[in-house]
């Protein structure tokens, strides 16, 4: 897995031979604006099936926006996103494409899960219900099946003894691990992780990262991960993308990006992360 020479079309060798044989996720000239502010500026990049990509870059560089576009929480302004060789931000209409409708998105986002910086557990449900409600109602699993699976996943994240607790009774780190279990319960092909340890007290970070390491090692879920945890990024990711002002400033294998960054912006950014004690 060596770094590719251009930021575009960099995929990790050894992964990516999915059904369509092409990349799983394709950003094609994606522009995202909020009013006058251009957050993503004609962005091109691909992610292969099974690949784990870490997104780094200064605050405001558009990392969260990329994940939110994939989770269909935002719409592209220009350009398009394809997933699995089929349009994602758009849908086929006649001979061309139209912006995706809500029902089309509902069909297409099935395969995608997301874990948020602030956990966003449902406070009106126990831990078990948080994990099993969507499988029951969205996937149509039986309650018994979903409950058993919730227990299994909560075991996996080390919270087997908290299934009937209330989210407010858990520490931040525990809540985030429930959120990971909740996302996994939907059996996603693609998992989006947006600074999932940034809201945690330092002593709780390791527990969450261990869970994610385990997920990375034991599944072939494609992961897009925004994080300042450079050690973790180095361990689990096939590729690192350095963002700056809505564009990819540098891309490559984690050993190269962290060990031998080429771009001035990457060097400055990594230095600032180290100094801020992340």
């Amino acid at each position, binding site marked *: 897995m060596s770094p590719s020479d251009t930021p575009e079309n960099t995929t990790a060798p050894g992964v990516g031979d999915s059904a369509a044989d092409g990349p799983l996720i394709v950003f094609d000239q994606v522009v995202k604006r909020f009013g006058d502010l251009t957050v993503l500026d004609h962005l091109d990049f691909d992610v292969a099936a099974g690949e784990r990509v870490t997104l780094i870059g200064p605050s405001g560089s558009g990392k969260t926006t990329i994940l939110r576009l994939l989770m269909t929480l935002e719409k592209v302004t220009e350009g398009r996103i394809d997933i699995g060789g089929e349009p994602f931000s758009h849908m086929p209409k006649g001979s061309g494409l139209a912006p995706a409708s809500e029902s089309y998105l509902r069909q297409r986002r099935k395969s*995608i899960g997301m874990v948020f910086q602030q956990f966003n557990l*449902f*406070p009106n449900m126990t831990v078990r219900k948080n994990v099993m*409600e969507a499988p029951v109602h*969205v996937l149509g699993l039986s309650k018994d099946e979903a409950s058993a699976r919730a227990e299994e996943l909560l075991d996996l994240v080390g919270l087997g003894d908290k299934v009937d607790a209330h989210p407010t009774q858990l520490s931040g780190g525990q809540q985030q691990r429930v959120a990971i279990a909740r*996302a996994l319960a939907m059996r996603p092909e693609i998992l989006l992780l947006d600074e999932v340890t940034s809201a945690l007290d330092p002593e709780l970070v390791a527990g969450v990262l261990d869970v994610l390491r385990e997920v990375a090692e034991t599944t072939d879920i494609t992961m897009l991960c925004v994080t300042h945890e450079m050690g973790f990024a180095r361990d689990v990711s096939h590729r690192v993308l350095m963002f700056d002002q809505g564009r990819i400033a540098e891309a490559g294998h984690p050993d190269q990006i962290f060990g031998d960054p080429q771009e001035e912006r990457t060097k400055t950014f990594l230095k600032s992360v180290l100094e801020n004690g992340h």
Partner: protein
Amino acid sequence: MEFLIAQWPRFLDGTLLTIQLTLGGIVLAFVLAMTFGVMGTMRHWLPRAVATVYVEVFRGIAALVVMYWLIYALPLLSGFQLEDMFAAILALGLNLGAYGAEVVRSSINAVPRAQVEATVALNMSWAQRMRLVVLPQAWAQMLPTFGNLVVELMKATAVVYLVSMHDLSWIADDLRRLSGETIPVFLVAFALYYLIAQVLIFGVRLLERRANRRLGRVPPSGGGILGLLRPPTVGTKVGVAK
């Protein structure tokens, strides 16, 4: 005093009618408030337009006027006579339902955006999102204001006096006319209204407590009867740093 004791059954009949009107009005107002309140949060303009029209029309018209329309004008227009009881409940429910719909709408809008985003990430449909996440959380927010509306509704039932339904107010006034015992009669009426209001308030507080428990918010004073008190404003708690 003997007079009051002798007339007690009539007081009870009046009270019963007042309670029936109140409960009927609550059920109808609740259904309308939920329906139009949820419609007021939908993305499509049509349900929102319908909800706005309902709220603005019935918020602006006194329940009494609606009741006059239903009882006196409707038969002239349609040749169809509603039963008094039904008309009264309809008028009260339509009126309070309009206020309730605004409470429902604003409570739904107050559910954090992040919660909705989490439901999108789990690919829930709109109906699943509402039923499983948004409404259960909005519910705790609605209840305190619902408590006020329920008491408002109970007090508003007195308007049926004007279409000669024998509710508590009508009975009290009738007994006053018959006996001249103005003060005792109205004291009893006052006590009975007050009692109904207290039961309603207590009931809503119980619901509030349960709703907050479900959201993992335990009353600061624990689970006892004091838990029914509203929590103090943060700044007023002794020993809490600013």
